[in-house]
């Protein structure tokens, strides 16, 4: 058994930022991460991070209030407005801080941080480092974590929470290098494990974006919020769904259909290609569905050729490399085939503006949390911002929480029992007589999510999808491991993940069926308008150990800063 005051699960931007904040306050903090923190999914973010710095010549009139408003409107008013205001308020200082820590942002001629236009934003406020902003931010925070000597347990797969009398007191983790489960006790746990993109087969996310933090908290009784809102990015590569940044359109790229039209003028005449992602993604899908995909196939073109080689090489070198390596297309010479792809998880663990959940001692930040600042649809450039703003806030909140504690000794018996339970569970996975194959089930689940809970949803299709997910959940009980070795057992990790992912998929399915309206990323062809009268509220999903699906509840949206209005771009 290993003890630290604070344990942060996940070494991406949120986790690192939370750990750094706690460490700077002198708290003994450790990060547990499935991969080395520098390899986290945060590093895949490309386009940039929003803050109303006003560095861009066209952005001199930008301010934090406008940033908050764009965020609220982008989220189709399901955003808790006080949280969005707080995020926009914190944005400049956290970005300046990242710069002081050495983040290699691109620069304007006057030496200030460069900003580019981004989807759904009234001003160019997206700070960027070429098209590798996430990579640069991530490495900057990894470097700071090393500087501050934050303890990092690398390649530890966190499998469950230790909960004693309703208080979170640590986690149980599988040591991938040395093998075996270990209990890590703590006075507070921060979950920062990212989204669950891998529940969809067509996702831009990393292979480790399985939502493990979400289902751990969910299984421990913490509600998940707004799970039906899943973002689909307009431009993933056609064959692999690897992300082609919104920055490509921010720099002036066009979306072109088979007739050679910039079809976005039909759907968002003012914002064109820079409409929010939900609208752009649906527009692309309509073009494809109506036979105007390129050559009648299932994709459209992202055309960058008119930007010229110089601009592409300077501002978008990363996506050029990706297009060449993974699609065999050089954007300087040819347009890139793109399709809408699952990208981001607006929902997540229900937290307040400081990352606190309903369970004492348990905090969450980043994509796995739902504050909610993204509402029904996240704006590009706000997710990197969210990770750092709310990572920092969660780190600070944890320190405050520790000061209120009188008894700091976690219950050893609970910790021991939790570790033993995981060991038994895995042992049982190895010996049981199941005939099911985890990979087939995973494929079924991810295809169901793609086919039934994608851009356009309707009652009948979703009912069928839910049925099939319930079947998967039933079949998951009959999986057995094909390899039971202790070191780097990928088979075991992927099986344990699958069980939780099915539960997350069910939250999406049940929530989406329940919400009879269209709002942001959740678009129903049978209820195709926003219904503020009945549905201006958050969905909460609670785990029910005895039932297949979640129990749903709701929670009001915090308004008060901006008037509701129709969402047009």
């Amino acid at each position, binding site marked *: 058994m290993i003890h630290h005051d604070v344990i942060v699960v996940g070494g991406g931007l949120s986790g690192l930022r939370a750990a750094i904040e706690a460490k700077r306050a002198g708290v003994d903090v450790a990060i547990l991460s499935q*991969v*080395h923190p*520098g*390899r*986290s*999914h945060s*590093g*895949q973010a490309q386009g940039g991070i929003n803050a109303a*710095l006003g560095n861009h010549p066209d952005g001199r009139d930008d301010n934090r209030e406008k940033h908050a408003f764009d965020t609220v409107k982008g989220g189709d008013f399901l955003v808790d407005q006080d949280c969005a205001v707080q995020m926009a308020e914190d944005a400049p200082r956290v*970005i*300046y801080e990242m*710069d*002081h*820590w*050495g983040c*290699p*942002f*691109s*620069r*304007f*001629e*006057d*030496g*200030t*941080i460069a900003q580019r236009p981004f989807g759904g934003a009234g001003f160019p406020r997206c700070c960027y*480092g070429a098209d*590798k902003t996430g*990579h*640069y931010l991530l*490495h900057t925070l990894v*470097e*700071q974590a*090393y*500087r501050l000597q934050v303890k990092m347990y*690398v390649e530890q797969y966190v499998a469950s929470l230790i909960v004693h009398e309703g208080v979170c007191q640590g986690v149980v983790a599988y040591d991938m*290098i040395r*093998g075996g489960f270990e209990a890590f006790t703590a006075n507070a746990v921060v979950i920062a494990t990212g989204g669950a993109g891998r529940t969809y087969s067509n996702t831009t996310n*990393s*292979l*480790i974006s399985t939502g493990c933090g979400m289902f751990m908290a969910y299984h421990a009784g913490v509600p998940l919020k707004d799970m039906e809102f899943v973002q689909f990015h307009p431009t993933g590569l056609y*064959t*692999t769904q*690897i*992300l082609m940044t919104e920055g490509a359109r921010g720099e002036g790229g066009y979306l072109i259909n088979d007739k050679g039209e910039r079809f976005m003028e039909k759907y968002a005449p003012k914002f064109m290609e820079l409409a929010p992602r939900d609208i752009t993604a649906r527009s692309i899908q309509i073009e494809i569905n109506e036979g105007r995909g390129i050559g009648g196939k299932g994709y459209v073109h992202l055309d960058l050729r008119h930007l010229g080689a110089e601009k592409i090489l300077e501002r978008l070198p*990363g996506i050029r*490399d*990706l297009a060449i*390596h*993974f699609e065999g297309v050089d954007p300087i010479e040819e347009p890139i085939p793109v399709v809408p792809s699952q990208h981001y998880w607006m929902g997540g663990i229900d937290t307040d503006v400081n990352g606190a959940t309903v369970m004492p001692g348990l905090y969450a930040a980043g994509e796995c949390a739902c504050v909610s600042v993204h509402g029904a649809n996240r704006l590009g450039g706000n997710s990197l911002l969210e990770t750092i703003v709310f990572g920092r806030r969660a780190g600070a909140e944890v320190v405050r929480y520790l000061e209120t504690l009188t008894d700091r000794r976690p219950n050893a018996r609970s910790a021991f029992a939790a570790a033993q339970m995981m060991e038994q569970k895995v042992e049982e996975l190895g010996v049981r007589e199941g005939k099911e194959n985890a*990979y087939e089930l995973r494929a079924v689940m991810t295809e169901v999510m793609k086919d039934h809970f994608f851009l356009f949803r309707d009652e009948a299709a979703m009912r069928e999808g839910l049925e099939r997910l319930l079947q998967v959940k039933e079949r998951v009980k009959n999986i057995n*491991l*094909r*390899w039971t*070795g*202790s*070191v*780097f*057992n*990928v*088979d075991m990790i992927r099986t344990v993940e699958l069980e939780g992912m099915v539960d997350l998929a069910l939250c999406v399915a049940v929530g989406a069926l329940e919400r009879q309206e269209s709002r942001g990323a959740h678009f129903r062809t049978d209820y195709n308008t926003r219904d503020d009268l009945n549905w201006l509220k958050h969905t909460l999903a609670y785990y029910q150990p005895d039932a297949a699906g979640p129990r749903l509840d709701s929670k009001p949206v915090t308004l008060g800063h901006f008037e509701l209005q129709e969402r047009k771009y």
Partner: protein
Amino acid sequence: MPDIKFRVKRQDPGDKKNPEAHWEEYIVHYEGDNLTVLEGLFYIQEKYDGGLSFRYCCRASICGSCGMYINGAYRLACQTNVKHLDTDLITVAPMPHLPLVKDLVVDMDEFFAKYEYIMPWLIRHSSDPEKELIQSPKERKKIDMPVDCILCGCCYSSCPSAWGEDNYLGPAALLKAHRFEVDSRDEGGKERIARWNNERGVYRCHTIMNCVEACPKELNPTEGIQWLKRAAVRRKLLGKAK
């Protein structure tokens, strides 16, 4: 579409019955004309052998997890399309010259210890301004190359100077030192220079340039190291590195 043969180097040092390295062959079937080596490994893991271990994460060549030795060269498994290897036999081995954990997973502890040793962070002494630190596009351009390093370890594994030499820092750590020394915002010359400006640091680099060939991101660690050597001379003679 076609089937392709994978030859994968397997070894489980913890397996008492068979702790030795051996090669195993698998037929990987795929549709269309795109199959990355990483997808091939998942296919093997899913269809043939759940015990196959390898690192994976982003599958988009930015996380640096899947550096391997594929058909005689250092490559990222996710970035390598079998089509481009132009062969019907794919051999996959772990990065050589590093301690093995299992199958394709190597021990990177030493690699990161060296990374940490060169103080890979921006060192500042003056107080920070209220806004950003001003850096001209020309100054920013100087860090273009080294900031793209993904710490995959290919260069480190390929460097003959680092083979069997525990105390040589290796190309990745030194490139990171270069990344900060060359950054106009960094003020850490005095602290950091002692870490790399010595006979176990930059002067173990004999410009063999394997690292340049190995780097899947097409970076040039040797250039960074040579810059450091020149910077050390500038500091001795002129009192400043940049």
